[in-house]
Structure formats: C-alpha cells, structure tokens
C-alpha cells in the first residue's frame, strides 16, 4: 500500500539520504519505542488519568483511544463528550478568544433563548499549572468560605485567606498578603465586568457574584500588584453590604 502511494507521487526515497552513521538503526528502533505521542496521550498525561505510559502493546493505539473515550464519557455521560482542554489549542490568539467570549456573554443576556436553569451563574475557573479548566456555579454558594472550600476540593494547594463574615479581607492586610505571595501559595483572582483582574475577597459576596466573569487561581509569585494602594481598605470597611 505504502509503496504504491510513493510511486504515485513520483518520488524516490533513496534521494533523501539521511546517512546517520551508527545512529540509523538506533534511531529507528528508538523511534518505534518512542512512538508518536498522540493527542490522546497528551490529554492522558496532562489529566494524569491514565496510569500506563510507554508500553509497547500492539493494540496500544486502540486501548489508548478506548481509554480516552472512557475518560470523556466519565466526564459527562449525558452530553456529547466535551474535549478536554489542551493548552494553546486550537491556536487562536488569546485576544480573539477573550473578545469572542465577552461578546457571547453579552449577547446571551439579550437573546430570547435563555440557557436552561437560567438562575445559574457559571464561571470558568483556571488554575496556573493545571492542565484543564473547571466551571463553578457561583449561585451555589453564599460566602467566600463556601466557594473557597469547593475550589479547594477541585484543586489542591489553594488558599483564600481569612474572610470575615461580610466578605471583607479584614485580617488580610498588605503584609500578610505579601507573606502568602512569597511562598508557592496560590492567590484567587477574578475578571470583572470591566475586564479588570481583581483580587477575590475585596467586595461583598453578592457584588462579587454579580460582577465576576471568570476566576483564575494565580501563582502567588505572579499576583503582586493586584492589592495595590488604589483599593483603600479604610474606604471598603465603610461600604454597606446589600
């Protein structure tokens, strides 16, 4: 089959001599063992869901795709399998992705076709270093602590700090934040309606739910600069919770 194809293209393999002395055989053998790391395997690796890696089972490809289907079905048996997210795929500029996402959310508000279960507020949650995103319904929680617990279950090593009953970061002043940030702790941030990235916990819970468009759990080392002097803690204390 393959030979036929080659003559069809009018091509001679012998023209291209790679001529790697000594390595030739080794490379081929190495090649067969280090077979193509396919998309499904990448997904498996990144999801850490498959325990096997690098076996030379002749039915390998089959079992891999079966495994992948199982994984996808396990994620949501009711709906058509959603693809697990791989970083940077499809290759669409982030600017474009974000722009479309923003436009979509505003047209959903105006469109007559309401999403079923319309009182939910699903937002995407990403965590730096995690291979895939999650979604949470903010309306399921009543306080920052509840949200924090839920996210903590979804992702490990996650801290939101101490939040007072009004959702203010009473106890989290700037120096404490810096302590958190110095370590490898993660800091929860969110994108609000204006497209700005904010530190979670500054505003009353309800206000947060209204304005939060997506969550990002940033690595502590990246999160400096969010808690800057423009958010006056004194003024916040005076804000009424609605």
């Amino acid at each position, binding site marked *: 089959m*393959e030979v036929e194809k080659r003559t069809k*293209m009018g091509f001679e393999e012998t023209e291209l001599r790679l001529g790697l002395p000594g390595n030739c055989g080794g490379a081929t053998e190495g090649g067969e063992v280090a077979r193509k790391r396919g998309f499904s395997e990448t997904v498996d690796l990144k999801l850490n869901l498959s325990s096997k890696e690098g076996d030379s089972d002749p039915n390998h490809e089959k079992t891999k795709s079966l495994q992948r289907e199982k994984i996808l079905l396990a994620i949501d048996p009711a709906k058509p399998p959603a693809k697990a997210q791989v970083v*940077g795929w499809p290759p669409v500029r982030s600017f474009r992705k974000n722009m479309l996402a923003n436009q979509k959310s505003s047209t959903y508000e105006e469109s007559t076709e309401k999403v079923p279960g319309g009182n939910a507020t699903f937002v995407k949650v990403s965590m730096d270093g995690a291979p895939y995103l999650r979604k949470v319904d903010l309306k399921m929680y009543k306080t920052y602590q509840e949200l924090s617990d839920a996210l903590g279950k979804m992702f490990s090593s996650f801290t939101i700090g101490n939040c007072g009953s009004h959702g203010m970061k009473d106890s989290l002043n700037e120096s404490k934040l810096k302590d958190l940030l110095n370590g490898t702790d993660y800091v929860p941030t969110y994108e609000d309606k204006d497209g700005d990235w904010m530190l979670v916990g500054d505003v009353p819970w309800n206000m947060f739910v209204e304005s939060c468009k997506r969550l990002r759990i940033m690595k502590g080392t990246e999160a400096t600069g969010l808690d800057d002097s423009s958010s006056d803690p004194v003024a916040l204390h005076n804000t009424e919770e609605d």
Partner: protein
Amino acid sequence: MNYFPDEVLEHIFDFVTSQRDRNSVSQVCKPWYKIESSCRQKVFVGNCYAISPERVIERFPGLKSIFLKGKPHFADFNLVPHDWGGFVYPWIEAFARNNVGLEELKLKRMIISDECLELISRSFPNFKSLVLVSCEGFTTDGLAAIASNCRFLRELDLQENDVEDHRGHWLSCIPDTCTSLVSLNFACLKGDVNLAALERLVARSPNLRSLRLNHAVPLDILQKILMRAPHLVDLGVGSYVHDPDSETYNKLVTAIRRCKSVKSLSGFLDVAPHCLSAFHLICPRLTSLNLSYAPGIHGTELVKLIRHCRKLQRLWILDCIGDEGLEVVASTCKDLQEIRVFPSDPFVGNAAVTEVGLVALSRGCPKLQSILYFCQQMTNAALITVAKNCPNFTRFRLCILDPTKPDAVTNQPLDEGFGAIVHSCKGLRRLSMSGQLTDQVFLYIGMYAEQLEMLSIAFAGDTDKGMQYLLNGCKKLRKLEIRDCPFGNAALLMDVGKYETMRSLWMSSCEITLGGCKSLAKKMPRLNVEIINDNDQMEVSADDRQKVEKMYLYRTLAGQRKDAPEFVWTL
C-alpha cells in the same frame, strides 16, 4: 567597481524598497554596502534579541522607521509566559540617547510600558506613526502621552493589544492644532472614549482615511463621524445596535451613501444584524471585509451582505458562515486572494465548516493565495482537489479542531493531502498543518516545499526522521515551530549549522532532553538556546536526561540577553 558617483547610487537605491532587496543590494560589494547602509531609512528586525540596538543605529545612521518583533509566535497561544521578554524600552532608550530621528515605530508581540510611550513622545519631535500589534504592558495613560506630545501624529494603529483601559481621556489629549491624522485604530480598547472629542478630532482631520472604532462608539456618533469624513477608505464600525425605524438609521443611510471611497470594512463588535442593509450600499466597492469579531452576524444576513461584495480580495469571517455560506463566497468573490475562517467557539471545539467549504472556495476562487481555515474535519481527497485548483497558495494554514483527526472518510493520515499541497503550490512560503500526520508528510515537505520559510507543526510525526526530512530538505526555512511531536535529540542535533540559517526554532512537549540542548548550545555559540522553565519543572541541577518542556533557540549577534527572567535559562 563604482562607475557612478555615490549620489546616483543612492538615488537608484531609493527605488529599492523591500528590506530583502536592500539586503541583497548591500551584499554586492563593500562600497554598495556602505552606501546602502547610510541611506536606508526603514529597518526590519524580525527578532529583537538577534541584534543590539546600538549596532543597528551604527549601521543605519539614516534610520527613521523601524519594525521590531519580540516574542515567539506561540506566545499568541499562551505557550510563553507573559514576562518572557520582548521589552522595547532598551531600543527606545538607545534611539533617544543617540538622537535617532525616529518617525515610525511598529512593534509586534512586544512589551511596551507607559514610561516608554512617554519617552517616545518626548524624544522624537518628528514622530508620526505608532503601530502596535499584539503588544502589552501599557495603559491608556501611555496613549495620552503620545496623543499630547506628538505634534505631527499621522498614524495611531492599535491591533489586538492587551491594553489596560483607564477610561479614555487620552483621545482628548490630541491638541486642537493637530490636523495631520491619517489613520486611527482603537478597536481593541475596552473602555469608553470621549465621544465629543472624537467627533471634533474627525472634523479637524481632513486627511483621515482609516478609522476603526471600538465598541463604545454608538451608532449615532458613527453617523456623525461619517458625515464629517466622507473620504474614508477604511472603516471599522464599533457598535451597531439600533432601531431600524429610527431617524438615526435614516441619517446613517445618507451618511453611508456619501462614503464613496470605503474599500475596507471591519468591526461590528456589537450588532443588530437586521439593520445591516444600510451597508449593502458600500459592499460593491469593498476589497477587504473583516467580520471575524462580529459573532452577532450570522445566517441569512451574513450571506446577503456577502452577495453584494463582488470585488472582495480579502475576507475574514467566522465559521458560522458554514459550508453553504462559503459556497456563496465562492460564487460571488471571484477576485478573492485571502480568506480566514475563524472558529466562533474556540473553547468548545466544534467548528461549523468542513472540507466541503474549502473545496468550494478552491473551485470558485482560483486567485486564492492565502488561507487560514479552522474546520471540523478534512480529507485527503479534498486537499488534493484544492491543490489542483489553487496552485498559487503562498500561505496555507489548516487547523482541524481535533488536532490528530485522520481523513474523515478513509481514516487514513492526511499525509497525501498535504503532500499534494506542497507539491502543487510551488511558491508556498508558509504552512501550518493539523490532523493525523506521519513521518511521510515531512518527507513530502522536505522534497517539494522549496520556498517554504515558516512551518508550524503540532501532534504530528512518528520518529526523529520526520524532523530530519524537514531540516534536510527545506533550504529556505527560517522559522520552525513544533509542539507535541516525538522529535528528540537525534533530530535536533542532526545539522546544527542549519539553525544559523534560520531565525528561530521552537520545540515544546517533544522528546529533546536537557543534555541535547546543552550539546547544541556548546557547538553553536552564536545561537541563544533558551529553556523556558515555567511551572518549576526543572531544577538547576537537573539530570541531562530530563526532557525539556519548552525550548526556543534563535541566532543572534548580541549574545546572551540580559533581561531574561528567572525561569528562562540560556544554555
């Protein structure tokens, strides 16, 4: 060798405008090198770390216009950490210090701060043009500095930048005495602008030919602007939401009628699609149409619009147009040279076009040269047909949303299809592929893609041979970017000298190891071999056998860069 006086040569060289041609001219002989270098005004630096600003200034004392590129292309897809590099400040600071008469600055994928924008605005009295593409690091305050201080500003073009918006007073900073504006594009800004200032600006800019508004400019302002600027050639509509029975709409129709010069249309960032018929008046003259940021336009309205666009040469669209919509494009736009079909739902992973639409385009539009096509599936048969119908492709980028999907009909790899493309399109300069691909396709590329300069590969190939075919065959290769392919050290080290003939190589999630990269760096001192170690995957004392997650190497005359962050190691 010099039969002409220098002034005559200079005059002749003035007619040579492309950078490549000027480079060739400068290599003829030493006198020509000297003369060409002394009179070159426009310089292009494809990798800002390949050379130092001081050397550029020294070689081109007549420098007036520069285009710099920073981050590697895959930074567009979040594969490169934000603070990897690409800072323009050292360049501007060097220009300012050396009294370069800078008039035009164009940047792509670079980081530019407000301080830098302010420095530009104060250091170059004749500064005329600022074009920023996919840049970040600045706010509208920086724009305000440019607006306030650049008295002869002709062009301010912001394309797809990540700008922190401090609610646009920047526009009102353009002084009333400034009447030189020719091109203004602020479509990417997220915040409000001072609408009254915008109107006044348009009114006092008789040379304004290109205007792209952001979503915060409503329809009634658009109408007023169009009345003031009937000579516009390029228009980007911001918000297009209104009541079709209103007086504003009627006024808009009148205004549009007066715009007899508009050849390029874009925007519609917010849109009530049933009111698009006003623009049908403009469509017959359009050569360029970009609706890729208008998810609100779909179905019949979209097709209606396109049916009027018989002169279109460039079309950027969302895949909600569907295969049938592409058939309409194919039957209407006979002059089409470039088309880009973007996924309207890039997160979910379902595209609304298939190989059917692509084949239809190839049949109807034989002048096609450039395509970017995101689709649900592809077949070898379709690609072979496309290759036959359109031998003039110079840029061919196909992205199947499932990156390892085989031929949708035969379940075979897509090697033959892409092989046909490179075999038929002898002028192909840029290629990016997807779908299930084996080493075979690389054999074809190495054999046939003689003019290929840029290649992007993902999830493809079986063994090192794949990459070896490429490096061996493509003599004109300049940029190679590879992700998630099983290529290892044997391929990487096969021909280390090759990398000095290229601008850069990116490899991520492949099989290369730290030892391989170190070996390469040792052999080639004029390459910067960078390991990007975000997520703390590697320690300093890492074993040489450890796989490298992200490697970016590029040739350079400037040595190791001094602004690399902690997680970037130059070997």
